[in-house]
């Protein structure tokens, strides 16, 4: 609608076009790539510029054509200008009245001001003149007061009156003038009002006229514009119609061409179709024949299938009936089973309840039984306690009885030996030596030899070592008894010393500080005591085990070191006599099996001690658990008792007995000759009473007949089998003891 504006926009666009390449890469750029690009752009821009020139021409042409064409636009502009002018003129025309009144008002004001000024001047002059007159009059009043003559006064008063009247007349004149002026002003006001109304009328007229005019012209212009648009539209219509027709013609021509082409193509396609149809027909026939054959074959197959179907149907019907029957049966069975299940459920429930009851019962029972068991265990423990108590008591009793019997036996033996001595010395005149037997020194039951504790042994060992130099033999004899097991005391001592030196860590530090002031041996003793308590070594056996362990360990683990130090021992460690054990050889005469290799503890390297100790402790721990109950069991060793007692019988050897027998016979012979009153057989009914006289006789005769035989106490043992179990022994021993003696005597007599 607005060509200049659009043109301006186009120009702007052109400017934009021009400005765009400047923004792109420049030819003077440092980057070669950019330079190349810039040149390319420049080359591309050249034809574009040419095109733009053409375009510019076209634009100019377009502008011209637009000017030609847009009649409506021109018409619009024209009418717009015309209307604007009209409006402007109209408003001017209308406002002219206002301006005119304004200027009139200004003029009026000016005139008014002028008149006002004149009036004021007039009034002022009037005031002046009247004041003068008034002053004159007032001055004359003073004169009048001085006048004494009434005639003069009257005259003066008359003249005063005339003057006053003149003054008043002047004033009245002025007032009249002013009133006249006012009247004229009133008239003027009315005139002004009329004029104003006229003005307003004029204004209204002009406004109406203006409105009419404007309306008319606007309509006219509208008509013009419409006509212009109409014309333009017509032109446009005709031109576009022509264009349209041309395009239509071209279109129809092209359509025709296409139609012809199409017809040709259709004909070609029809031919092809016919060919295809014939070919397809033949094909179809062939296929039809083949398919009919196939159909026949298939129909035959169908018949066969039908027959098999019939057969199958019958079979299936039969099966069906069978199955139906079975189904019925199964339903019957099912109901039965259901009933059974119900019954079983009932029983199951019953059983469950019973089971629960039983569980309860058994639990109760279990509780009662456990309580019983507890009670029994308690009883058992009490019983054990009692048993232990009784065992101790038994031992005591046994020991007491043993001692008693032993005492009696020893009494008898001493008597016998006394007799023997007497016989030997008095009757035979032979020197008599008291026999030496091990059992003579024995006191108390053999099995009840007290076990020594490890510390005691230690003490002994150490003490013994102390005294080694002086009382070697004696102490060794003792030590032999104490250490019966293959190890010499010295070895033991050395091992212990080594142990003591090496395992100081087992001793408490406080103890060490306490030990410092003590003697060497005591120090060792206390130290070892502490070590053993730490290692858990309590008894003698444990100690020996330890020592043995040390020795064995050395044997098994350090043959190489032995070879170096002692090549001899390396050959046969079991049987070889030790170089250092030479002293012991004399002691161990009685027991050659003890001659065992006692390797030097010196060969045990001090560093090995800890390893050995560790291994020993590991080994010791295992048996320790089982040893406690074993200890509790008190096993009485009866094997040596009989030996002991039998040995007691042989206190008087057979040789002496035969001697006695010979003596006896000699004495009998001797006795028979002087008197035969005294026959031992008479007194056989009461041994005690018989013994008394006999003893007395013997005693009485002792100075005379030294050869009165005494029944050997050894014969006592030849009586009926001894009952070694404690209680009966004591009761039996008395009478049994005497009877064999008597028999002995009898047998001797018979001999």
């Amino acid at each position, binding site marked *: 609608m607005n060509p200049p*504006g659009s043109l301006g926009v186009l120009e702007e666009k052109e400017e934009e076009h021009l400005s765009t390449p400047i923004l792109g890469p420049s030819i003077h750029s440092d980057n070669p790539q950019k330079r190349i690009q810039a040149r390319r752009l420049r080359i591309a821009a050249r034809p574009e510029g040419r095109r733009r020139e053409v375009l510019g021409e076209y634009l100019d042409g377009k502008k011209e054509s637009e000017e030609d064409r847009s009649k409506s636009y021109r018409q619009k502009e024209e009418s717009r200008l015309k209307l604007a002018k009209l409006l402007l003129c109209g408003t001017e025309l209308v406002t002219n009245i206002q*301006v005119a009144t304004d200027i009139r008002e*200004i003029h009026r004001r000016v005139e008014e001001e002028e008149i006002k000024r004149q009036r004021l001047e007039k009034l002022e002059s009037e005031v002046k003149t009247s004041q003068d007159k008034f002053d004159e009059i007032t001055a004359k009043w003073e004169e009048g007061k001085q006048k004494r003559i009434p005639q003069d006064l009257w005259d003066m008063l008359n003249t005063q009156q005339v003057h006053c009247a003149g003054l008043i007349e002047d004033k009245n004149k002025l007032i009249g003038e002013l009133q006249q002026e006012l009247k004229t002003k009133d008239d003027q006001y009315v005139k002004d009002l009329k004029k104003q109304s006229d003005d307003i009328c004029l204004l209204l007229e002009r406004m109406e006229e203006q409105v009419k005019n404007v309306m008319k012209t606007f309509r006219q212009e509208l008509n013009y514009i419409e006509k212009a648009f109409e014309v333009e539209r017509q032109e446009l219509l005709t031109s576009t119609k022509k264009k349209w027709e041309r395009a239509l013609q071209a279109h129809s021509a092209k359509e025709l061409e296409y139609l012809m082409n199409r017809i040709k193509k259709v004909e070609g396609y029809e031919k092809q179709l016919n060919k295809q149809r014939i070919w397809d027909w033949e094909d179809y026939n062939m296929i039809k024949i083949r398919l009919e054959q196939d159909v026949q074959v298939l129909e035959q197959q169908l018949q066969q299938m039908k027959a098999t179907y019939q057969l199958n149907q019958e079979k299936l019907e039969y099966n069906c009936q069978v199955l139906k029957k079975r189904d019925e049966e199964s339903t019957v069975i099912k109901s039965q089973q259901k009933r059974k299940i119900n019954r079983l459920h009932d029983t199951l429930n019953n059983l469950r309840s019973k089971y629960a009851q039983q569980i309860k019962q058994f639990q109760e029972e279990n509780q009662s039984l456990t309580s019983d068991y507890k009670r029994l265990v308690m009883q058992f423990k009490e019983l054990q306690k009692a048993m232990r108590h009784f065992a101790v008591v038994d031992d005591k009793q046994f020991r007491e009885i043993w001692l008693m019997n032993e005492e009696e036996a020893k009494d008898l033996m001493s008597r016998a030996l006394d007799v023997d001595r007497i016989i030997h010395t008095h009757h035979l005149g032979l020197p008599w030596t008291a026999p030496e037997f091990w059992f003579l020194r024995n006191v108390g039951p053999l099995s009840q030899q007290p076990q020594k504790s490890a510390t005691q042994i230690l003490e002994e060992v150490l003490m013994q070592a102390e005294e080694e130099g002086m009382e070697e033999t004696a102490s060794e004899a003792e030590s032999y008894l104490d250490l019966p097991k293959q190890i010499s005391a010295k070895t033991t001592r050395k091992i212990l010393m080594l142990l003591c030196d090496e395992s100081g860590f087992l001793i408490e530090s406080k103890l060490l500080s306490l030990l410092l002031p003590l003697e060497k041996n005591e120090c060792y003793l206390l130290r070892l005591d502490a070590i053993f308590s730490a290692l858990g070594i309590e008894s003698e056996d444990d100690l020996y085990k330890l020592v043995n362990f040390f020795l064995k360990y050395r044997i098994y683990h350090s043959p190489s070191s032995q070879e170096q130090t002692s090549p001899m021992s390396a050959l046969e460690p079991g049987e070889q006599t030790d170089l250092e054990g030479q002293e012991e050889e004399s002691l161990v005469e009685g027991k050659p099996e003890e001659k065992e290799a006692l390797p030097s503890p010196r060969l045990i390297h001090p560093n090995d001690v800890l390893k050995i100790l560790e291994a020993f402790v590991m080994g010791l721990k295992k048996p320790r658990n089982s040893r406690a109950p074993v200890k509790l069991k008190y096993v009485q060793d009866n094997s040596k008792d009989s030996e002991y007692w039998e040995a007691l019988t042989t206190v008087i050897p057979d040789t002496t007995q035969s001697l006695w027998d010979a003596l006896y016979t000699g004495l009998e012979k001797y006795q028979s000759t002087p008197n035969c009153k005294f026959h031992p057989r008479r007194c056989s009914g009461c041994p005690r009473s018989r013994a008394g006289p006999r003893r007395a006789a013997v005693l009485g005769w002792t100075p005379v007949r030294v050869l009165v035989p005494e029944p050997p106490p050894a014969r006592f043992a030849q009586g009926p089998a001894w009952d070694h179990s404690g209680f009966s022994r004591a009761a039996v021993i008395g009478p049994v003891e005497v009877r064999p003696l008597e028999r002995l005597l009898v047998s001797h007599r018979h001999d």
Partner: protein
Amino acid sequence: MQETLATSTLSVPSRSSISTQDKFSTAGQTSSTGPRPPRHSIVPPPSKSKGWNSGTKFHQMRRTIAEDTEWSLAIVPLLTELCIQHIVKNFQNNPLLKQLLPAHQQKVLNLLSPDLPLAVTANLIDDENYWRRCCTQRWPVCHVAKHGGSWKRLFFERHLENLIKHFIPGTTDPAVILDLLPLCSNYVRRLRVDQFLPPVQLPPPPGELSDSGSDVELEEPATDHYQLRDLVAGLSHLEELDLVYGVKDCGMNFEWNLFLFTYRDCHSLAATIKACHTLKIFRLTRSKVDDDKARILIRSLLDHPALEELDLSHNLIGDRGARAAAKLLSHSHLRVLDLANNQVRAPGAQSLAHALAHNTNLTSLNLRLNCIEDEGGQALAHALQTNRCLTTLHLGGNDLSEPTATLLAQVLAVNTTLTSINLSCNHIGLDGGKQLLEGMSDNKTLLEFDLRLSDVAQESEYLIGQALCANREAARQRALNPSHFMSPVMAKGPENPAG
């Protein structure tokens, strides 16, 4: 009635207006009665007279049932219609409107009579059609466009104006106006009162003032008018206040007493406008406001939050009042100041010019028919060299001459905001005209330049007219596509402060 009585004494122009009014009224009647008859035929009318009509119709119908082939049940009124009629009939006692369906509401509103008391309708009915009927019934000429396009607003504003116009202090009950206040406070935005009646001993009805005015002797010199304070305080949306303290249509009963704007009036008015924070436009014209009263009013308007336009034209304001107005210019957001037809002379114009030099709000200044003379004119011209806001300046009839014209010519070359200058009825003279023409040749923004009756040569006036035409054309182009012409204007912008 009052209107017609008043118009009987009107002079010629008012008669013409009467004739137009008559035309309008008749046209309105015809238009209002035009659509009614068909409606009556469908719905039995609610009023009694119409009820009688329907009764007669019913009779006729009954008689003609047998023959009437076109009779059908559709003629029987629906229950909803009957209900609506009933609602309309009893609307005064039981106003039911909001509960109804929109369609029924519309029907009810169409049927309601415009005579219903305002207490019922004011806050209930928003329908423009109803209020339009009310307005057209009361006033033959209604310019809705002047009341924001709202008939309801128009009704209330004019109703209130009428009440105030005919309020006679001491005789009329103030409650008449104050009772209306809660009803109209939401709708009244403009109050345009061109008549304040003075209190009288023998209270003649205002309408009869014209008839028996000659008998009335207004002896009391202190005649205070209606106090607007309570009313304005109640109108929460009041934006425009247009007052004339005078009596209209007094004719030959003219008394100077009728046109007294007393000091009490002035003080109360000042307090009123100070309290009204929504006021945007305040006009007090033809009220004999002299310097002191103007100062009282303007003092109360200092730092007013909303005031934009102040019109004190056709008063008696002199230099002191003008100085006060100048102070107001720098202490408010005033955009339009009209001091036309006052007695401002050179000192007042100088103070105004001083305020104008640094003002950024004022767009229009009217000093028509004052007497600022060349001194004031030169001061204003100097101020315009720095001012960047004023667009309209009216200096018509100010006894200006050549020196002012030369200065204004310089201003024209520099200033880019002025669009309209009026120098009519001055003594610019031929040389002044030429200088103005020179100044005009450099100006591209001025659209109106009135030089009528100012002793300027025809030729230069014509050439100035040509330049104005060109400017107008340019402005039109600018308005049509602002984007294109924006850039040159923007480019020009920074040059101006330098020059």
